[in-house]
């Protein structure tokens, strides 16, 4: 049998690997083309329903000034504002929508996405009674909020102080952003 030169040998190995990678890439491109529109529609729906939940009637995106670095978008509607904030939670960034009325009171909050511990921090987004109770606390509040441990009135989720603090920080950022809008 003819022995291959080293260059040819390495080239053959590299080409085989490249071929496999190329086939995988093509397969993934195909699956991606099928799933991408669905994922985007779902995400858009989730965002829209979060806005509607905290600001009945929805709103349009407007410009804003923000010192906290947590606010990503502000939507203005006829009943007030819906502020999208992204505080850092325990397991990653929590994306939430905070509805604020024109006179600086919280209308409600909705968690769009989170990566907190299931059964503990994840309760902040859950549709369970505990989750609704936690989120419901914020409605009607204003000014600067804090959890009980930090001397405030917000009852933290049991065993999820950091998540609760993060949500409170997010609400505070939303409130101060709306206050800045004048």
């Amino acid at each position, binding site marked *: 049998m003819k022995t291959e030169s080293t260059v040819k040998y390495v080239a053959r190995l590299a080409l085989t690997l490249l071929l496999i990678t190329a086939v*995988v890439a093509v397969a*993934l491109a195909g699956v991606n083309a099928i799933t991408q529109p669905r994922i985007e529609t779902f995400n858009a729906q989730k965002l829209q329903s979060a806005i509607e939940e905290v600001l009945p009637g929805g709103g349009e995106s407007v410009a804003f000034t923000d010192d906290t670095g947590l606010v990503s978008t502000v939507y203005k509607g006829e009943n007030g504002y819906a502020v999208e904030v992204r505080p*850092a939670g*325990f397991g*990653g960034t929590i994306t939430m929508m905070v509805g604020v009325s024109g006179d600086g009171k919280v209308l409600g909050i909705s968690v769009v996405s989170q990566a907190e511990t299931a059964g503990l921090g994840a309760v902040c987004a859950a549709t369970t009674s505990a989750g609704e109770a936690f989120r419901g606390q914020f409605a009607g509040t204003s000014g600067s909020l804090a959890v009980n441990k930090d001397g405030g009135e917000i009852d933290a989720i049991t065993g999820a102080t950091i998540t609760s603090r993060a949500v409170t920080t997010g609400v505070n950022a939303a409130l101060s952003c709306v206050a800045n809008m004048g």
Partner: protein
Amino acid sequence: MQAIIGILIAALLSQNFILVKFYGICPFMGVSKKIDTALGMGMAVTFVMALASAVCYGLNLALVALKLEYMQTVVFILAIASIVQVVEMFLKKSVPALYKALGVFLPLITTNCAVLGVVLVNVQNSYNFLLSTVNGAAGGLGFTLAIVLFASVRERVNKADCPECFKGFPIALISAGLLALAFMGFSGLSIF
């Protein structure tokens, strides 16, 4: 600067990569029988994690520009495999003693959840180049801390008496659990 210190403290203590976030468990169980092997493995993993974070940050920029985000997993893991191969060849030539001590665990760094984990976390949190590399290095240091602590505990546990069905990994896991319980005390340390 505050961000860097925040990441360091998080990766080392309050969100330790092994004991809180559960990355890197397989080598945690496999290499932690002796302290010096554990330390050597930890250093190797730290280096790979920092390098992988830096390289994958650049690769991700290219993927996002080309709208190929769905290729992230494939591209990252191939990059990590290549980096580990290079580190292996380097160690074989320059530090053969360590190469021999780590044995089969060195190529296994490729399948270490901590390496791919930290790269994915960097992308998820949109860290810039500096923060990505710091997160990678800090995660590796957290890994080293946990693995060395665990090795010292395990050396003693292996000499102790324990029920037949608990010998080996079960008692090691329970000791790791107690270590994780201790690290829970750090959870309030987030300053970032």
